[in-house]
């Protein structure tokens, strides 16, 4: 484990990819007849938020990242005609339960934080702590990118 950056690959696409995806999702949102009434603001907000997350998941690598897969799966719970989930070979699934049971023995400080992280990061429930950290790093990068894109959008759209 000489060079950490080589082993941990957290490459995130550029902002424009995020922007495209986000705008596409928003345009798809527009196809729905939901924005006529004013009291759908909350609903709209939620829709936008969901669109933001999903587009982020797409932009950040689709199903090749654990958290994005979990996000997309969560988003398309009922009707999954959209996203294809390739079968990923899970080599160490057996470790999950065993490590969970022993989690208290393993640096309880780290494990407590890992539990909280798992609640935050999508798909963190089935990951080992080290893998969880990797996914968290990538997730943080993508989140920051998405935030920047949205900020630009809002700034652009806000009335001057």
């Amino acid at each position: 484990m000489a060079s950490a950056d080589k082993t941990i690959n957290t490459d995130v696409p550029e902002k424009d990819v995020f922007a495209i995806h986000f705008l596409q999702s928003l345009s798809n949102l527009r196809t729905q007849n939901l924005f006529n009434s004013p009291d759908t603001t909350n609903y709209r907000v939620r829709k936008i938020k969901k669109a933001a997350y999903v587009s982020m998941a797409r932009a950040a690598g689709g199903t090749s990242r654990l958290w994005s897969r979990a996000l997309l799966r969560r988003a398309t719970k009922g009707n999954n005609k959209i996203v294809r989930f390739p079968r990923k070979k899970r080599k160490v699934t057996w470790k999950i339960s065993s490590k969970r049971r022993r989690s208290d023995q393993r640096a309880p400080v780290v494990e407590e934080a890992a539990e909280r992280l798992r609640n935050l990061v999508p798909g963190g429930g089935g990951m080992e702590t080290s893998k969880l950290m990797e996914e968290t790093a990538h997730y943080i990068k993508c989140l920051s990118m998405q935030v920047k894109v949205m900020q630009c959008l809002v700034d652009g759209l806000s009335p001057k």
Partner: protein
Amino acid sequence: MDVSEEKRNRDSSNYDDRVDNPTVDWQVSGSNPVSAPIDSYSQENLISACPSSCSPSQMMDSFGQTLWYDPTSVQQAVGYGGGFSVQSNGGNASSSSSSFRGNIDRSLEMGWNLPNLLPPKGNNGLFLPNVSSFLPPSMAQFPADSGFIERAARFSLFSGGNFSDMVNQPLGNPESIGLFLQGGGTTMQGHCQSNELNVVGGEPHNDESTVVKEPNVRSSEQSKLNVPGSGNVSEDTQSSGGNGQKGGETSSKGFDTRKRKRNGQNSEAAQSHRSQQSEEEPDNNGDKKRNKEQSPNSPGNKTNSGKQQGKQSSDPPKDGYIHVRARRGQATNSHSLAERVRREKISERMKFLQDLVPGCNKVTGKAVMLDEIINYVQSLQRQVEFLSMKLATVNPQMDFNLEGLLAKDALQLRAGSSSTTPFPPNMSMAYPPLPHGFMQQTLSSIGRTISSPLSPINGGFKRQETTGWEGDLQNVIHINYGAGDVTPDPQAAATASLPAANMKVEP
């Protein structure tokens, strides 16, 4: 070697015809030419080798008197012992003792049985009755049961592999042995304090005198006694030829593999038994394949050189495992090693995260940093939510996608043709019924604003993309505005023409 063959035949027959007449064999053995070289490896050698470096214990004396100084039986007895020493390393009593030690296990079983079978066989029978009579006092501490056998196995286990180090070195080099003893002896002694067959090194060392000598003596005694009775073991030892330690190994191997598995975790023996036990540690394969090398306080060079030979036997497998080596002064339990690897992984990733999260450089300590990371993730998620809210309120129509892309050309188009044609109803599907001017304003503003933020993001890209999209959309819009009758669904057309619009997100 004829001696080996003879011995093998004899001992195998001895083993098989345990009930019949082993004494005959012994007589045969007594007469065979093996006894000739006995003189060179007579009791002096054995006696000198073993007790010389160890203070003679009472057992040794009594044993020596009964066994070695009995002319008739001693000859045969020593013949076996001497023969063994002959075959093993020349004059290397360590090997002989190792082979003896290896024979202890089997011979013990035999030894207990044989006295019943050979009661009064004169001098030949003196062998075993000596065993029976003499052994109990010496072996009073030895429970003649699986416990002792287990310990014996462990003893031979521990020493078996390491004897390669010792055997190859002359007897007069107690340093390596001593070092080895030191290295391996700590846990050994912790384990086997109560055992007679204590020490890893068959050779007594000055420092480990008390602990080592007695078991060594005893082992040599018993092995000498029980040599004829153990067919398999002797065969093993003889087949190993000049490598006496191997005999001990094979005997122990054949004796109780179960014990070896249990002891597999013990790192002291691990280096010698790595090759043997590599398949017995499946749970550790995930992290490490080669077991530990403990480098205790003993001088590193000599121990390392001594242990090198044991290490060469086990090659690291080339199947993607991460080889871990225990650091100096660290526990070498396989579980702790796995834990260490895991901890290192986690800390490595945490360092990576530290670079990501702003303001985490000053923070030290895992707990605080993890809290920081969690806070950061939460803040980012809250930011996304807030911005989405803002987006929803700022632009309730949410009609910024196409318009943004349409930018200049579309505006021009609309400006050109919008006055004449009524606003297409399809177009206004998502649009609230706004005055036309307002729409125009919105469009222009959106176009301007969308393009401007995009350009700092990636100037070149926006140009290209928008022109591409604009090119496609232009036609659509042209159709839309140019011919008011034809109103293809702009959404569908637009989305279809969008280069990357291959997915529809179902909210």
